[in-house]
């Protein structure tokens, strides 16, 4: 009788993680965490930044070793010493941080660790064909011989997903796979996920995008502070309930009240084009004091490139960027480099914050204040007190979860690292903020706070330009939404008239 029950159990779940504990110096990252994944189902794993989602998955994948607890795959107890063993035993994973060899091409990245061989030599033909097969079945269009480093983040993300799928694993872990994908690619990913689910694969899906979760998942497990909170059928849940379970309190509105009132024009961008591909072409718009201007578009519509050209990271070919001060005087600015732009009152939070913005080995403090270091010099030395004060400000306003100021950046969770970087730029007190996907990878509670922060910055009379792939977010907090299509500006919609459909139509205008 007893035995029969356990038999039944093991046939139901492809993966069981029971009572997993994991402690890092100063943090109890997992505290009796648990997760049970059924065959042929999509299981969402939810929790705030730092809740322990990635840590739990890394224990499964053999990157970390759990302190206590049990992992069973198909009813059998397993213990993986390293990722190699996990892969061999049917577990594949798309990691939160893109782990790719930028100097090598797509196919070498996909088959890394298991290159096809013929007589002891690598079979390039087969590698190419196999890659094409995978791409074809997933409807991905890309030449397997392209160098990874030359692809956009979204393309790299898709390659990473294709790689995970190509292992034909029983268990597929997707740790924030959509963080850099736009709607269209997300749909594409969902088609892939549904196909795999129907083939019986158990899929663990981690994301901070609420709408996605309810659409794609069968079950939801929620974690908070390393602990298991609840596991429910997705159909029995609402976004409200999930958020409540995640943050442990009620959060009625996803977006704060819009209190900012746009004023005079403060920035004019006229016919701006960049020199080197990929780049924006002939883009004109203006930005008002206290305005939040959203920029929508599909992945590859060169929104990032537009911001980078304004900010001087990319070379300008033609066009003008003109500042208008309160007295109405016009000052064309060149923004030849980012330093130049910063001194002209611009700040930019880049899209790939983890890759381009983080000093992994340095402390939270160092990372928070580095852009502003000159500001702390007092009589030739750095003022420790002001530094500590500002670091605390960043930690408080951004709700960074860190054991101390001195903690090295690399031991923060992915979302918390991002928050520190955003805080760093806010410390610089810029007039014009260029934000590239400011809420990517950030949990709902903190998103709300970031929105609040953006609105209060606008209230102070700053101008905000915000690129985002999450349309609800753009519709929720922007005053106007500019839509890019293939490097050009397809149109600017007012908040009152903008709808998702209209944005999508415009986004396809020049394709």
């Amino acid at each position, binding site marked *: 009788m007893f035995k029969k029950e356990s038999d039944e159990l093991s046939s139901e779940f492809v993966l069981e993680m029971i009572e997993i504990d994991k402690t890092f110096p100063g943090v109890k990252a997992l505290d009796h965490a648990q997760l049970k994944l059924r065959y042929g189902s999509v299981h969402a794993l939810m929790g705030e930044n730092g809740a322990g989602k990635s840590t739990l998955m890394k224990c499964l994948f053999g990157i970390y070793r759990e302190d206590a607890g049990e992992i069973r795959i198909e009813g059998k107890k397993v213990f993986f010493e390293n990722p190699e063993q996990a892969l061999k035993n049917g577990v594949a994973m798309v990691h939160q941080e893109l782990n790719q060899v930028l100097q090598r091409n797509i196919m070498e990245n996909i088959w*890394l660790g298991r290159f096809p061989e013929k007589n002891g030599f690598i079979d390039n033909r087969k590698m190419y064909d196999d890659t094409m097969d995978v791409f074809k079945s997933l409807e991905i269009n*890309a030449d397997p011989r392209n160098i990874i480093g030359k692809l956009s983040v979204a393309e790299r993300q898709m390659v990473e997903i294709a790689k995970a799928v190509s292992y034909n694993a029983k268990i597929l872990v997707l740790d924030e796979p959509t963080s850099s994908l736009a709607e269209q690619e997300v749909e594409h990913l969902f088609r892939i996920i549904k196909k795999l689910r129907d083939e019986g694969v158990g899929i663990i899906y981690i994301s901070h995008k609420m709408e996605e979760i309810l659409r794609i998942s069968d079950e939801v497990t929620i974690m908070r502070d390393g602990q298991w909170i609840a596991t429910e059928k997705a159909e029995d849940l609402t976004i409200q309930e999930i958020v409540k379970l995640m943050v442990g309190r009620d959060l009625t509105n996803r977006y704060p009240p819009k209190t900012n009132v746009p004023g005079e024009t403060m920035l004019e961008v006229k016919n701006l084009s960049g020199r080197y591909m990929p780049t924006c072409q002939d883009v004109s718009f203006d930005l008002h004091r206290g305005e939040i201007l959203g920029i929508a578009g599909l992945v590859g519509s060169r929104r990032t490139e537009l911001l980078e050209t304004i900010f001087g990271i990319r070379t300008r070919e033609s066009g003008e960027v003109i500042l208008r001060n309160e007295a109405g005087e016009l000052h064309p600015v060149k923004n030849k480099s980012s330093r130049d732009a910063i001194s002209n009152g611009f700040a930019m939070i880049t899209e790939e914050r983890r890759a381009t913005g983080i000093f992994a080995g340095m402390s939270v403090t160092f990372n928070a204040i580095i852009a502003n270091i000159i500001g702390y010099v007092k009589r030739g030395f750095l003022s420790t007190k002001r530094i500590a004060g500002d670091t605390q400000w960043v930690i408080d306003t951004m709700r960074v979860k860190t054991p101390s100021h001195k903690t090295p950046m690399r031991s923060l969770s992915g979302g918390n690292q991002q928050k520190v970087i955003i805080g760093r730029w806010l410390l610089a007190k810029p007039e014009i903020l260029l934000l590239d996907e400011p809420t990517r990878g950030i949990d709902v509670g903190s998103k709300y706070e970031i929105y609040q922060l953006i609105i209060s910055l606008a209230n102070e009379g700053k101008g905000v330009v915000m690129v985002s792939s999450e349309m609800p977010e753009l519709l929720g907090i922007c005053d106007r939404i500019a839509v890019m299509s293939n490097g050009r500006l397809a149109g600017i919609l007012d908040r009152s008239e903008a709808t998702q459909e209209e944005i999508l139509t415009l986004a396809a205008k020049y394709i």
Partner: protein
Amino acid sequence: MESSIQVKDKKWANLADTLLNYALYIILGIMILVVIIIEPSFVSPKNLIKILSQASTRGILALGVAGLIVFAGTDLSAGRILGACAAVSASMLQSVTYASRMYPQIQEIMPKWVPFIIALAAGLIGTILVYRKTGSFQFWIPLVTTIATGLYYLFSSGTMTIWLPLLFSIIVGVAFSLLNGFGVAKLHLHAFIISLGSQLIAYGATCIYIDSQKGGAQPLASLDSQFIKLVNGSIPINDSLNIPYLVIYFALCSVVMYIIWNKTTLGKNMFAIGGNPEAAEVSGVNIVKTIMQVYLISGVLYGIAAYLEAGRIQSVTTNTGLNYELDAISGCVIGGVSFSGGVGTIPGVIIGVIILQVINYSLYYLNVNAYLQYIIKGLIIILAVSIDVRKYIKKK
């Protein structure tokens, strides 16, 4: 995934890209051109062959160092390891008629028992390897063939065996190189540090070894004439042109290394680890094993280079190999092997080594003041590398 609108076609940009991609070859061309203008007699097949053959032992050394640079490491000990290996080779290769040779009995032991024991050991190792890999009956093949070779040497008439010192040279090279590899892979030291230490060890060992001769520290010279021929001989093509064996050995090593780098899992894993060790790890690459294997191959190349170098200079002292690693490293970086890891090609290394030798030889040929030569050499290295890295700087 691809968006397809084209900006104005910029032909000059494409041209600049192409020029950059072939920057190394262009630099080499320009250098030769400059030398020709100053001294037209420079460009004769004979001179070019000479440059090639001078470049070959250091080229082989550079082929070994290159893999370690791809790991974002380096090897400061390559020169001293070469010195140690060369001393071992030379000590076993002194001609039997030379009175104060290091091993007077060598012609008696070497051709008889040593080959037999080595053959036996090789046979056993081969057997175990084959059996473990295939699990089939084919394992008798290495066993029988090697034992047969060993027996043949045991009973054949005792002439000097000149290939055995090569084996010892390789063993010494591999031992030192694996020490470096162990430091990098297991102790997680930077290659710079571990090789900084091991070059001292190699140097000390070489000095003790050379010092241990009966007559005290004297150069290991008077090498076997058969060996000298094997190293310094050449294949006549026509009256004025010979292709030295050295060039052929260099070419062979290059081909083998090209295949390892481009056609084997080991090579690809090496690039992956050099480019992004975390990506390699989560993809299931065995990092320690790959690093050790690459160091092992470097050790083999050091051993070969040392054996040939011993024959080329024909007298090994404690100073043999001094600063060779700097030439090898310069060759690699001129040839586009990036110090930040994950980037490099074998043809690049070859060109790099040749460029360096062209600089050396042409400055000498043009009778440039010896001190000035250093300055010019330094400037050209900086120039060449800074042009070459342009192509990795992404234009925005």
